[in-house]
């Protein structure tokens, strides 16, 4: 493979990760506030279909993206209402919504199957795109990919550096403690779940209006992405930068699966297609290895300097979920 092809491929990886990043960031906000939005897989499909349909009918790509976000927000509102106000099981509600939205997308999307619609064009950034290697890697992308770069940073900044973000961490961790510090816990949970839903809803049109333009129904290949995004959220330790890393890793593994197919002819192509999934799980296990008791015991036996370095590393890698995830808050 020559350098140019490699660069194009890697740039494609960055673009392919964009929708996963939106979904993962959305889920991260929602779960940070304590609400699991399990509907993600269905939401992505429904917003992909809805976004395409709106863009097709109005001929406006912007309206298509907004429609996707609106769909995501509405589905999230159902999750929020059921779990926060009605105090129902978030898992049950989310799961049913995931299935419902998926089938709704296939059903409502029938008229748009295989239609040629509007598609987001690449937007090379002047000057920057001329920088060798970096330019073609980062700055000849579509607008939505640039937005995904910025979104990672903003989400990280919000959660870890701002006052409301700090409170968001508190709400998911110990709502009672956030409450005595003045937070309106349930209102904030609504807000973050709905905003998170809108971000998840942005993932759909990113597929149907950009990287896999069009609506192909059951063969769109989008089914399952939501579940992966869910596991990347966990793998990312509810941290936008780590979650983004997970999304890029997954996109990279998928691309490698495609690229290696002609090279590794003796390996069945199905193996390469499926490989990213178990690899993700392995990484997930490795990242959270610091939680295991035997690791702690093994560490205790090591010399002081090694132990200190390793335990610091493991502490940094370790991710524990927001303690109040999935638990309704009641004032006293």
């Amino acid at each position: 493979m020559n350098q140019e092809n490699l660069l194009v491929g890697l740039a494609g990886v960055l673009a392919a990760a964009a929708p996963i990043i939106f979904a993962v960031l959305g889920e991260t906000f929602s779960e940070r506030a304590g609400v699991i939005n399990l509907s993600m897989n269905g939401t992505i499909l429904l917003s992909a279909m809805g976004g395409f349909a709106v863009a097709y009918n109005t001929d406006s790509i912007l309206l298509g993206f907004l429609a996707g976000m609106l769909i995501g927000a509405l589905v999230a509102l159902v999750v929020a209402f059921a779990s926060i106000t009605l105090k129902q099981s978030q898992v049950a509600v989310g799961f049913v919504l995931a299935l419902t939205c998926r089938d709704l997308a296939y059903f409502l999307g029938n008229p748009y199957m295989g239609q040629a619609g509007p598609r987001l064009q690449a937007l090379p950034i002047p000057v920057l795109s001329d920088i060798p290697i970096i330019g073609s890697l980062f700055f000849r992308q579509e607008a939505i990919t640039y937005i995904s770069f910025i979104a990672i940073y903003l989400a990280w900044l919000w959660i870890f550096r701002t006052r409301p973000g700090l409170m968001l961490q508190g709400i998911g961790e110990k709502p009672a403690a956030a409450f005595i510090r003045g937070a309106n816990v349930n209102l904030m949970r609504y807000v973050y779940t709905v905003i998170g839903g809108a971000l998840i809803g942005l993932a759909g049109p990113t597929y149907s209006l950009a990287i896999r333009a069009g609506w192909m129904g059951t063969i769109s290949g989008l089914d399952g992405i939501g579940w992966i995004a869910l596991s990347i959220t966990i793998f990312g330790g509810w941290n936008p930068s780590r979650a983004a890393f997970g999304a890029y890793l997954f996109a990279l593994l998928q691309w490698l699966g495609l690229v290696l197919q002609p090279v590794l002819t003796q390996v069945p192509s199905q193996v390469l297609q499926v490989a990213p999934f178990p690899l993700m799980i392995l990484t997930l296990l490795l990242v959270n290895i610091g939680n295991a008791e035997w690791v702690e015991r093994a560490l205790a036996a090591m010399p002081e300097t090694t132990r200190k370095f390793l335990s610091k590393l493991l502490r940094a890698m370790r991710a524990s979920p927001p303690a109040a995830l999935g638990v309704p808050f009641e004032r006293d």
Partner: protein
Amino acid sequence: MNVELKNIHKHFGNVHANKGINLNIPSGTIQGILGENGAGKSTLMKILSGFIQADSGSEIILDGKSVTIDSPADAIHHGVGMLHQDPLDFPPMKVLDNFILGRFTGGLFPNRKEATQDFNLLAKEFDFSFDPESYVDSLTVGERQQLEIMRLLWLGARVLILDEPTTGISASQKSKLFSTLKKLPEQAMTIIFVSHKLEDVESLCDQVAVLQAGELVGEMKPPFNTSKLVEMMFGKVVTLGERQPVLTNETMLELKNVSLEDVRLKIKNVDLNLCAGEVIGLAGMEGSGQGMFIRACAGLVRPVGGRVKLKGQDLTGKSYHAYKNAGVNFLPAARLEEGLVPGLSLTDHFVLAEQPKGIFIDRVAGQNLAEDRIKSFNIRGTPLSMVESLSGGNQQRAELALLQDPLSLVLLEHPTRGLDIESVIYIWSKLKERCRQGASIIFISSDLEEILQYSDRVLVFFSGKVSPPIDAATTSVEQLGQLIGGKGWPEKGGSHA
């Protein structure tokens, strides 16, 4: 800050938790609030700290101004801060983040530099040592309390409420806490110290108010008269019922040098010989170790040292089932959570308890069994009644009806809590019947009258310390009350032994 509580009433449904409490706390005072579990202390403090609102007609006056406090955040705006028993902080966060969180001044991005400066200044003032960049979960409970106190002061608290702050912290941390608290009134701070530990209250407070059954029954200033305080806390002196001496001298349960441990408490080297037919009552404030002790007797908690023998058989470290097969039954306090299975009928329970053979249930036999037990235990319910639909007294009767027969040792946690007097008498008559058949009983109760009335000997628990067995016939509510409040223990101070 002057705090005046006027005519505070609070109802929870039918329960009248605070009955017209009037209390005046002048600025610069350390006010102690004493009372048993359920006396209404926490309700009163939750009202003052904005967690709940008092009934209409109640009035809170701060520095002469009548205020309404809607929420804990509102309370802190009024200068009232509360340190909760379990610190309400965020363990996975950094100390500094935890410190900043909740202070809503200074725009979107908190000024970390300024906060660090304030933090270090406050820490220096109180002689605390913290690394603001370390994580909260690496701190001890005592340090987390210190952190909360600093935070509340930084937020501008002029009144500090402390709810049982000395539970779960070490002795050195306690003396540090007390010296910190004693400094605060010099700055016109008002401290409200809620506790059931007489010793703590007496060594710290400038005045004490005692709550009993939702009413303020008395106030006292130093020098404190301990026996008077105990009397106010626990009410009238009890008259004892008839007592039958334990006839046998056969040992049922033998504890030798038993030590127990959990995250909060350590119980060290307990020796006990329990005779067949004897009843031992365990007294103490909730969480003083008696729950762990009774679970160790049931085989649910494994002792870290010592031996447990039942009728000469060594059961140390054996499973709960080994204990059960040896004739030990345990009825926990949470009837529906741990004792019975909600969603199953009385018949189902009896069928389960009788350990049927085979796969299929003999419905008719089960029904007959249930009818039989319902009759002999006077349970108000039918064989098909779901256990959760029964009243508390009837649930307890059902649990008694489920006990194995014959039995060696019955362990009960709050056997009559929340029951009407008729059920109490009935349940104890059934238990005493077991004793006459040779079973021994160990029970936990927070009702001292019940302990004195029904036990032969009493063990008092205080922060993991266990008293030697006290003969119930010769002790008094007052003596027990003092021990429960941490007074008169031989190893400690020794002024009151």
